[in-house]
């Protein structure tokens, strides 16, 4: 389908993040690329679980006139996205702290100059 606009948005986000991770040398920019790629994956999970004209799967004060299984979005992709967001924050904290450590030791953020990582 050519009208799958949300899926093309997902593709654009993943490609932007992958470009930053592959072709940039600055470690902070690599971390930013990681975050953008991860948000692309989260958006992909959410768009997979969307149903046309669906509401959130919560029964508290549900609006009247909603068919119960057919007009609710899928709960499992939303739960997985919730898990993924928290893991993403924790991993980003770890990446940034290791980046700070590298800057303290080498005085640079250029991944080509951090030669001792390769030995």
């Amino acid at each position: 389908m050519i009208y799958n606009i949300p899926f093309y948005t997902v593709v654009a986000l993943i490609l932007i993040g992958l470009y930053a991770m592959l072709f940039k040398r600055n470690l902070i920019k690599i971390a930013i690329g990681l975050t953008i790629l991860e948000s692309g994956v989260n958006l992909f999970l959410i768009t997979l679980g969307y149903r046309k004209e669906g509401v959130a799967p919560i029964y508290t004060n549900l609006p009247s006139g909603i068919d119960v299984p057919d007009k609710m979005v899928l709960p499992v992709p939303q739960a997985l996205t919730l898990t993924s967001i928290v893991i993403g924050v924790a991993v980003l904290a770890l990446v940034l702290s290791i980046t700070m450590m590298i800057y303290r030791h080498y005085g640079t953020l250029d991944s080509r100059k951090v030669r001792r990582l390769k030995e």
Partner: protein
Amino acid sequence: MKKAIIFVVFAAFLFFAAYEIHPFGELDDSRMDDYIIENAQNETAANNVVTSVVFDYRGYDTLGEATVLFTAIAGALVVLRRVKNE
């Protein structure tokens, strides 16, 4: 150069996949989620179906996720405490 070729091939693959996937909002098969939506109130006594999936139907998943959170934060604290004490 090798990285550029890999990038272009992966981009073509992603665009092909986004073209071939089911139309947005019209699902192919959703029997598992329909079962969960219909039975979550009886089986877990909670109104919020997403929370009952996170903590009840997929509780092991959340336990593993809590482990990942704990490990990543412990790693960050170990790295940064050395910097702080210098």
